[in-house]
């Protein structure tokens, strides 16, 4: 795991108010099919055939060849078609937990050589290019693109990732109508409440999180784990 020192990040809806994030550890790459298969060996209740519908929609691990096995070529590719419940359980069994959205976004802000990627020439453009690239049928292996400032791989461009508190993003009309907490964030012109209007990839992540339920599975949604420092 990589240690991320105490610092701050700029939430999408917070104007220029950075949020402090305590020091923590985060996995250097997303959890792979191979790693998840090992977890299933000791936790057969989470296999495709056994998982309870409460904890994962149909489609859970549907890219695997069989109930307990992935395609060999995808051993080191990120595990996808995975629900929040399964991701949470996996991390707990490693003595870890899912990263909070704040922690995840703090790591995602990092460039290749500096902690603030937005100040690194070409970094935002690279993220945009990654975000608009369609996911290939078969996902490439983790850790093959380029590590960021903290030595963490694949925060951009490989898969979307679950966060512990993804359900803190309110959909419009659900909240007790407190102002400035995301209302109209995704409407035309709503981006005025965003601190960094160039951060289109962050918009996509927030929009995705606001649309997810914890049992959902997607072919380009995986996860990695974190731990307290």
């Amino acid at each position, binding site marked *: 795991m990589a240690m991320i020192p105490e610092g701050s990040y700029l939430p999408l809806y917070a104007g220029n108010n950075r949020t402090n994030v305590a020091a923590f550890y985060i996995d250097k790459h997303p959890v792979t099919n191979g790693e998840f298969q090992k977890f299933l060996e000791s936790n057969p209740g989470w296999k495709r055939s056994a998982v309870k519908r409460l904890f994962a929609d149909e489609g859970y691990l549907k890219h695997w060849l069989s109930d307990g096995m992935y395609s060999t070529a995808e051993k080191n590719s990120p595990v996808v078609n995975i629900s929040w419940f399964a991701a949470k359980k996996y991390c707990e069994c490693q003595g870890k937990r899912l990263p909070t959205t704040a922690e995840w976004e703090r790591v995602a802000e990092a460039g290749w050589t500096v902690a603030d990627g937005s100040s690194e020439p070409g970094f935002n453009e690279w993220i945009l290019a990654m975000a608009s690239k369609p996911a290939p049928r078969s996902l490439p292996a983790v850790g093959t693109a380029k590590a960021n400032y903290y030595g963490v791989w694949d925060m951009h461009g490989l898969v979307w990732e679950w966060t512990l508190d993804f359900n*803190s993003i309110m959909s419009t009309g659900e909240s007790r109508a407190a102002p400035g907490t995301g209302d109209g964030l995704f409407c035309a012109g709503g981006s005025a409440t965003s601190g960094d209007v160039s951060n289109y990839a962050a918009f996509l992540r927030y929009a995705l999180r606001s649309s997810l339920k914890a049992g959902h599975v997607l072919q380009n949604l995986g996860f990695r784990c974190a731990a307290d420092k």
Partner: protein
Amino acid sequence: MKKAVRYFILALTTVTAVSCSQKKQEVSSCCSTKQHESPEPLPAISGKSLFLLDSRWETYRNDTLEFEDLSGKPVIAAMIFTNCPSACPRIVADMKNIEVGLTAAEREQVRFLLISMDPKRDNPEQMRKFASDHRLDPDWIMIRSDRMATLEMANVLGVRINPLEDGGFDHSNTIHILNATGEIAYQQHGLAIEPAEILSQIRRLINQK
């Protein structure tokens, strides 16, 4: 007795689940899935039942509760926090409207449940004060757990919770109806909803039994 048997089984499972590498003592039970093969026959539940959750809850009467304990009667439930200034009293008022809409005989056949989304502040004493302030029938149940169990509960119910800097929360306003075997049978989204539809859903469940 049922609980004692279950804990014994849990202890056994924990000891036998050696193949999962344990880095920390406190996660020793995490690799075991909840056992339902108890010697006592439990009601058949589906893979969508909230009774599958293995979290433990503390009630406002200082008892412990597992969701399975709610088996046998439909449950009318909502997630709230007692320091909530506006929406939570409203959602409780909506639940009381439902209660008033039931006949005495129907009332006997359902449970009312409030689940705290604020486990840090909603200790049993604080929950008792809320129950008293809102003149809740002593038959209502109010519970809290820890942060992780609360998050898991929010996610099985599809409730969105956004913690705010002032200690409060933005949250979905939903009243959930569970059937007698713990599945979500109906959800009413929003506040100050006329209770005719939800009452008919509750009556349907009562009559199914």
